[in-house]
């Protein structure tokens, strides 16, 4: 399989097919990135598209210094930060500041989401980048501009805290836990 970096270079050289392949590889992961952080499917879709539009606009300036994966999530993090700033100052924020949407969401997902919300924001971000975006410690450190050792120690703390929150949820509502933890066949978990 041709690497992301080679595809990016081919796209830079004018290949539409290379871009389409990158789009196919990263459409779902980028939507998931925004979807888990914004609780707003429409905005998640918009911002995933914005990420690809940014890639197209910046194609001529792309240099293969970092992995394409890291490059894309770097753009996504900037768009996310801008979105959060916008939400803080707009009326949309007042509308979306209500309780998270729960209609149709499986209970096991609600349970994980609630436990995640109890984590400190910086630790939650690191945990999500590792578990869902599957970035390496050094990728996360580069994206968040913090030392690798800080990534490791925060990741450690967040995993222990999450375990504790999940156990606490489990004690108060054992029915929720029954459906959780079924691995997705396409995901690679901790080895």
């Amino acid at each position: 399989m041709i690497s992301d970096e080679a595809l990016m270079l081919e796209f830079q050289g004018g290949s539409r097919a290379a871009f389409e392949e990158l789009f196919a590889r990263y459409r779902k992961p980028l939507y998931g990135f925004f979807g888990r952080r914004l609780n707003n499917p429409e905005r998640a879709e918009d911002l995933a598209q914005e990420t690809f539009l940014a890639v197209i606009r910046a194609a001529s300036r792309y240099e293969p210094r970092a992995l394409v994966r890291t490059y894309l999530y770097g753009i996504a993090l900037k768009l996310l930060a801008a979105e959060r700033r916008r939400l803080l100052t707009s009326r949309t924020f007042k509308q979306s500041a209500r309780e998270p949407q729960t209609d149709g969401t499986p209970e096991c997902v609600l349970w994980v989401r609630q436990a995640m919300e109890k984590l400190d924001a910086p630790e939650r971000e690191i945990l999500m980048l590792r578990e869902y975006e599957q970035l390496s410690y050094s990728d996360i450190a580069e994206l968040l501009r913090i030392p690798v050792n800080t990534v490791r120690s925060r990741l450690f703390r967040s995993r222990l805290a999450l375990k504790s929150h999940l156990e606490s949820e489990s004690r108060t509502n054992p029915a929720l836990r029954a459906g959780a933890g079924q691995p997705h066949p396409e995901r690679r978990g901790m080895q």
Partner: protein
Amino acid sequence: MSTNRHPIEQEELMAYLDGELPPHQATEALSHLELCPECQTLAADFRGVSQELMAWEVESPQVGIPSEINAALGEHLQKREAAKVSSPRLENRVMTSFWVWAGALAIVCVAVGLQLTLTSRNRNEDRSTAYPSMASIEQYLMPDRNAEIAMARSAAPEAISSDAKILVLGWRGYETAVAGKNGFVCMVERSWMSPFNSTQFWNPKVRGPLCFNPAAARSILPLTIKRTEMVLAGLSKAQMIHSVKAGFDNKELPAPEPGAMCYMMSRAGYLNDAVGHYVPHLMFYFPLTDKASWGADLPDSPVTLNPQFQGGPEPITEFVIPVGRWSDGTAAPVM
């Protein structure tokens, strides 16, 4: 958990499970984990958390490329084409000088054979499923140290290899068998220097004699050493990929130096099941580069892009150019 009883910290155990420890620490972590019930419980906890998180899936509603992206893509490609037509680019000038050089070199090259062979190699590799996992380490070692030294030297003409440093593979990795004087390093690579997704990755028959020039000895050899250490430490491919990627990210592994290249002119090598000892050739290393800049893989071009690294995960591009003679000066067969 006290470090008096546990040779690794809890954080290190987590890093090991994430494939983020360097090989020597990973080996230590694995050895300890196999014997320590307390650490096994902690590892199970970490895995449990990871698994619980997988319940939170997000389904993307969109399937094809949205019209806005399609429009932006079309506009971008159109502008690019227009710019290319209206102004001759530096790239063209580079290509012109390249072709002059490549034309002279073509006298000794066997380009068509190379391309056909590489194509055939790739096709055959895809079909082969003979080596799904690592064989015993003994099968990768050469019992006769002198034979390995001779094979390593055979990678380059004697004028180069006779003064080169020679490395041989031992139980713990590559060891210096002969000190060198000219900055070149000759060795016999094993199958784990294939791409990680190659079916030949664990082929114990592979012997790849090569001689790195000084620039490659400084900037490419560390990668060979690292991959070898990780293999001998028993790391999984996923762990190795993570570790190599981290190695480049944190500069533990260097980028290819300008002028980095190696000789692979041995008739004694065995590069994989599809091509055997292959044809004598030279390899040139660069940071990730568009193959068009070397005219690689174009019709009748003697230059081929070797997919050995190419971002998977090493950010290295490698071009191969066949030459017409083996290292002993005898003519190579046209393939």
